[in-house]
C-alpha cells in the first residue's frame, strides 16, 4: 500500500473570461455547504455568459495520493438487494466482512486518492468550475513526472457528506470540493527518479473558472516510507 498525504498551502484568485472546452462531466446537483448559510443559493441554470467580474478564491486544502479503489455505484442497491449479513458461522466466511456493511466496503488496504479544494466566489455572478489538469512534478529537476487524472467532483453539503457537484458556484458562495484522483504509476515515476521515496514532489492543478485556466501549485511533499500501518 502506498500512502501519500500532503496538504497544500495555496490560495489563488482567478479571473474568468474565456469559454471552457475541457470541462469535467457535469453532475446533477450543486449543494451549498454549511459555511454559506444565508448567502445566495447556487443558480440552478448555468449562466451562459461568463462575466469578467468573476472573482474566485481557490484554496487547496489537502491532497492524498495513495491508491485508486474504483468508484462507488451511482446509487445504493435497493434494500432487498443488499448483501445479507453472514450467519454466525463455525468457520469464517471469506469476504463476509466486506459484504456485511454497505458503508465499510472500502478496503482497509486501499485508500482512495483525492484532493480537496475550497472555492469562494467573491464576484457578482455565478461561475463554472472545472479541473483541467493535475500533474505530478519533481521539485529538484523541475520535471513533469506524470499526469494525475481527476474525476467525480463532489461538494460538501449541509447533510455532512460529499455529493456530486456540477461545478456551478453562485455569487458569494463557498464550496468545499473533493475530486477523486488516479495516482501515477509509481514504477514509472521511479524509472525517472531512481526512487521517488524521499524526493520532494509537487502537484500542479489547473483550474478553469468559466474556461479561464489558472494553475495552482502545491507545496513540496515527500512520499512516506513504503511500509506503513493502516491509519487509525
Amino acid at each position: 500500500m502506498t500512502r501519500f498525504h500532503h496538504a497544500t498551502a495555496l490560495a489563488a484568485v482567478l479571473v474568468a473570461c474565456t469559454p471552457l472546452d475541457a470541462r469535467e462531466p457535469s453532475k446533477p446537483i450543486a449543494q451549498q455547504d454549511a459555511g454559506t448559510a444565508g448567502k445566495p443559493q447556487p443558480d440552478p441554470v448555468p449562466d451562459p455568459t461568463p462575466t469578467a467580474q468573476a472573482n474566485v478564491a481557490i484554496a487547496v486544502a489537502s491532497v492524498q495520493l495513495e491508491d485508486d479503489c474504483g468508484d462507488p455505484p451511482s446509487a445504493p442497491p435497493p434494500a432487498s438487494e443488499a448483501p445479507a449479513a453472514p450467519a454466525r458461522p463455525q468457520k469464517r466466511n471469506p469476504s463476509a466482512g466486506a459484504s456485511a456493511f454497505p458503508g465499510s466496503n472500502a478496503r482497509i488496504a486501499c485508500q482512495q486518492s483525492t484532493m480537496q479544494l475550497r472555492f469562494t466566489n467573491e464576484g457578482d455572478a455565478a461561475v463554472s468550475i472545472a479541473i483541467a489538469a493535475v500533474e505530478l512534478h519533481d521539485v529538484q529537476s523541475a520535471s513533469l513526472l506524470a499526469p494525475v487524472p481527476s474525476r467525480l467532483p463532489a461538494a460538501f453539503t449541509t447533510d455532512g457528506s460529499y455529493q456530486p457537484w456540477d461545478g456551478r458556484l453562485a455569487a458569494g458562495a463557498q464550496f468545499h470540493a473533493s475530486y477523486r484522483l488516479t495516482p501515477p504509476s509509481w514504477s514509472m515515476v521511479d524509472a525517472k527518479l531512481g526512487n521517488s521515496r524521499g524526493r520532494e514532489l509537487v502537484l500542479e492543478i489547473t483550474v478553469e473558472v468559466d474556461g479561464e485556466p489558472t494553475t495552482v501549485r502545491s507545496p513540496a511533499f515527500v512520499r512516506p516510507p513504503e511500509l506503513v500501518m493502516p491509519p487509525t
Partner: protein
Amino acid sequence: MLGAVRSDRARPMRLRLPIVLCAAALSLVPVVAAIDAAVPDATASAPPAARAISPIGPSPWSDAWLLAHGDTYLDDDGANARRVALTRSLHNADNLYARQRLRAYGLGDAGWDALPPWNPRARVLAAGDVDTPVADTTPQSTDAPALWDGIRPQTMAQWVALGRRVFLTYPLRAEPAAAHAIALGATAAIGLHRDADADAGLYPGLVAYRDIDGADAIGITCALCHSAVEDGTLVLGRARRDFDFGAMRLAWHADTGEPVDPRLRARMASWGPGRADITEDDDADPVAIPDLWRLRELRHLTQAATIVQDDRDGAATPLGLAIRQETQFIHAGGERTRPPRELTWALTMFLYSLEPPPRDVPQEDPRLDRGRRVFDDHCRGCHGDASGSGAAVAAVRVGTDPALAQGTSRGTGFYRPAPLVAVADAAPYLHDGSVGTLEDLFDPARLRVGFDRGARASGPVLGHAYGTRLSAHDRDALVAWLRTL
C-alpha cells in the same frame, strides 16, 4: 513534584508525600520546584518563586485557565495562535508527525483549515445492532442526530459533557475489521466485550454513522482503545488492555482474502492485546495503550514525548493537546474534513477531566515508609512531577527498546517517564508493555539471559535498570509503596 496541588482542582492526593520529603526532592529538582512553588499549595513549605508560568490570570492548568485558552483556540480563525501553539508543542520538528502538521495545519486560508467542518451523524451501537445482523441495522445511523447541536458550551461542565460525547461517538474512521468481528460474533476473541451502559453503547468505541461520502459505516472512536469495563462498570480513560487490534485486523484480512504485506502481517501478529503501532513509518514500534489519567499534569504527551505540553519554562498550553486531537481526526479521516474546533476543544476538556476510579489502598502496610524513602532516593529524579512523570529522558539513557524514541514517525530521541497515577493497575510496563509486573520491573533477573516472564517474549527485557540493584527488601517495599499511588 509529587503531591503538588493545583489551585482549584479537586483530586485524590495519593501521590502526596510528607513535606520534608517534598522539600528534599525540590532541592534536587530546582526547575520543578520553581514551577510548583509558583502554584498555590497550602502544604508546600517553600515560599512562592518569583517566576510564574503565566504572569497574570488564573493559575496554570486550573479550569479557569483552560477556559481562557479555549477562547484563544476557538476564535483563532486567522490561525496565528494555533500555528504558534503547534510549533511550540512539537518536540522534534523533523519527525513525520511534525512535518505533516507543519505543512498543513494552522495556515489560515489554506491547508487543513480550508477543509469543511464535519459534525457527524453518529450513534453508539445498540442491542438491536448485534442481536440482529448488523447489515440490516446500519442504515439506522442515517437517523442519528448530529453529534453537536452547534451551541458552544460556556462552562467547564458543559465542555466536559460534550467532550464525553465526542470521545464515545465521533468516528475516527470506518473500521471494517470491527464490523466484521461483530457480524461473526467474534468480538470476545479480540477483547471487545459487550457493555450494558446504554450511554456508551453496547461496544464502547464502536459507532454506526453516515460517512462523508454518504454511506453507512461502522466506525471506531477514542473509546475503543481508551475505555474498559471493570467490575461491570465502564471506565472511560482506562486503557483497554485486552483488546487485540492486530488480531482484529488479521482476522479480517484472513477472512476476506484482502492482501496484506507479510511484514505488516508479522508486525500486527506481534502486538498482542493492549498494544498497537499507529505510527506512520515502517518501524516496528508498537506501544502499550496508555491510561489517560491527569493529563494536565504531564509535561509531554505520548510515550516518546512527541508533544510538549508544559516545558516548565513558561510555555504551558492546552492547545497542544487540542491540536493533537484535531489533527488526529483530520488525518484518520483521510484529510477530507476537519472536526469543528468546538468538538476537539470539548474532547480536550473531557480528557483533562479524567481521573482513575477510586480503589482501596492499604494504608497500614509497614513497608510503605521504607518504600517511600526508596522512591525518593532512586526514582524521584525522573518521576518527580505530580503525576509521577517528569522531564523527558534520553532514550539511550533509559536503555529500553529505542525504536519508538528514535523512529522517524514520532521520535524525539527521548522517552517520557511513565506517569505513576494508579500504576498498580497499569501493567504491563515500559512504553512497549514488555514487562508484566512491578516485581519483574525491578527484578535483576529481568535483564539476564534466561528470563522467561517477559510480557511479550521470552528472554531478557533490557532497559530501565533503575531499581534492579536494590536489595530484595527495598524492592519489596518500593513495589508496596507504588501500589498505593
